[in-house]
């Protein structure tokens, strides 16, 4: 069976959906971060497969940039989670409404 670009994009869409579902349904900030990472990697997969398909390298480079950004985001995000855990035991994003208007 020939594995075409559609398969890769399909996997990417499924991954993205999983990530999105996670963001919508879970309330733990760590799981939230994990879900966001899954979504980012889904888009990376889409970028790389599109780059392969079109024969241009821009998508690959862009994926590298996304990885760098994702790494930085995880650092900041986990830092926040640790700070939160120190201040209060309850790790629930829905109760974090201190910054509302």
């Amino acid at each position, binding site marked *: 069976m020939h594995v075409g670009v559609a398969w890769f994009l399909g996997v990417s869409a499924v991954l993205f959906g999983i990530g*999105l579902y996670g*963001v*919508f349904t879970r*309330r733990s900030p760590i799981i*939230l971060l994990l879900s966001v990472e899954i979504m980012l990697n889904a888009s990376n997969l889409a970028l790389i497969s599109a780059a392969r398909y079109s024969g241009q390298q821009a998508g690959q480079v862009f994926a590298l940039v996304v990885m760098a950004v994702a790494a930085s985001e995880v650092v900041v995000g986990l830092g926040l989670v640790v700070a939160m855990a120190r201040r209060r035991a309850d790790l629930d*994003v*829905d109760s*974090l*409404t*201190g*910054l*509302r*208007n």
Partner: protein
Amino acid sequence: MSSFEALSWTCLFAPLAGAVVLTLAGSRVSRTFTAWAGTGFALVSFAAAVYVTYKLHHEPKFHHHGAREHIFTLYTWATSGSFKVPLDILIDPLSVVEMLVVSGVGMLIVAYSIGYMHEDPKERRFFIYLDLFLFSMLLLVMAANFALLLAGWGLVGLSSYLLIGFWHERKAPVDAAKKAFVMNAIGDVGIAIAIFFMVRDLGTVEFQGVFDQAGSRWAQGSETANWIAFALLVGAVAKSAQIPLHTWLPDAMEGPTPVSALIHAATMVTAGVYLVARTHVLFENAPDIQAVVALTGVVTLLMAGVIALVQTDIKRIIAYSTMSQIGYMFAATGIGAYSAGMFLLVAHAFFKALLFLGAGIVIHALSGEQDVRRMGGLQPALRKTATLMWIGTIGLIGFWPLAKDAVLASALAKGGTTAMIVWVGGLIGAFFTGVYATRLMRLTFYGQRSTYADVHLHDTSHGEAPRTMLWTVTALAVGTILVGFLAIGFGTKDELASWLRFVAPTVESSVSNEVLTTALGWGAGLAGMTLVFWAYSRPERLAAVKRPLRAGAVVAENLFYWDAAYRRIAYLPASVTASALYRWFERWVIWGTVSLIAYVVRAFSRAATEAQNGVVRLYATAFVAGAAVLAGYFLTRASL
């Protein structure tokens, strides 16, 4: 870059460098240092001007483009298609004369200020302003195109504004500064309009290009030619305080005395004369307007002469005499005697700066008093000052240098109605000059010493004034005497006229004309002098002289109602309109609109804040929903 070019630029930029350096130095250097450094930068400029003049003098003087005429370009200032304005300066006989006057007399006046402004709380700023002014004035006289000339024109207006309003703690100087600025702005607009005509019809604003093409592009006396000359005349009239745009000059006397001497006597106010001489090609292309120049000059010299007779403020007397003298210069340029007008300009720069600075010493010695009625009998205490001011008075009345006579002799030689009006008006004016100039000396230095002077006169046993003040005034007195030898007339070699021959020509006069004019001029001046000393010797004589002139004196004391007229026709309508606009338009329309916008924005924001509830997952949902809507939109478009 040759040393000639380098020093030309040095002459222009040294005062600007002074202004910038001293501003940046600020209070890190002492006040004395700022004062002397400010003078030093002016001195550098003067030395460069002397060198440039010397070099120019040694060049052959054949008449063709390029002989004794140098244009140095720094870079292209502005470009618009094929239209270019370079930043370039013109060094020719006319501009070096102005450069010498501006930097030379200017340097002396800056040096004088070291003593005069000593201990003033804003001493440093004063010298920075003076240097800025010198740069602006040099830019004006060295510019090689009309755009740069206008830049200099505007900058001298700015520095004049800053210096008139220098003592801004009081209301009068601030009002005077605003008045001067507004009146000068009218002139700036005039020059700008002339430039628009040049850009439209010639596509250039370079002096050379404009003067070469003017005659062929605009027929002599045509409407455009008249408009251009008229627009330039408006500029010249505003800057040189000629009627009807003259009312700012007497008020400008609120500035410190060195400012009055530098800006409102020696340099800036004579810029109008320089402008007419420089652009004489354009004025000769519009003979009617040139006649208007001459008549403006005559009316101003007579009117200002009459007003000067009744003034009591020592600086205002000199201010009106400045207006009157510039009237002579305008008359000279109006009849085509440009180099005679320039001669009077140079001589006037010396003797009028001398008179102002002498008056400054008197004011200084009397703790700031300027009313001549509260002076009197100061000659024994201020012996040197009195002697020096007599030299200035002799220059002003026109005994020596023979500058005024050169103008009037040219008028007689020229002939025709306009020139004869100039000649007759000028001789009548000479009588007024004799009266007011002598009256100033008589009231200040002779007669009974007033009680005020008795109480307030400083002890002058250690010298009449700080050394920097007396020396500079002495230098100006020497200059006044020497400058007379530039052009003696009576068939002798006229150095200045031959120097300016190709740039600012004159009307050749015969020896008999000059003898007649000089005799009449001296006679009129002497008559005025004698009348003053005769009348003031006894109170009843003075009363007898004044009685028949009562009605005229009232008109003169009200300054011929110019200020009152401007108040009625310009100030009051503007003020009424402005307050009505404030009451109705600003309060209801503008404030109303602003309040309405604020109300709408506030209501909308209040509603929008409800969405900011802090629940992260709700934000994520909104975000994804928005992305989904956008994706849906673009996908449907793509499928179509």
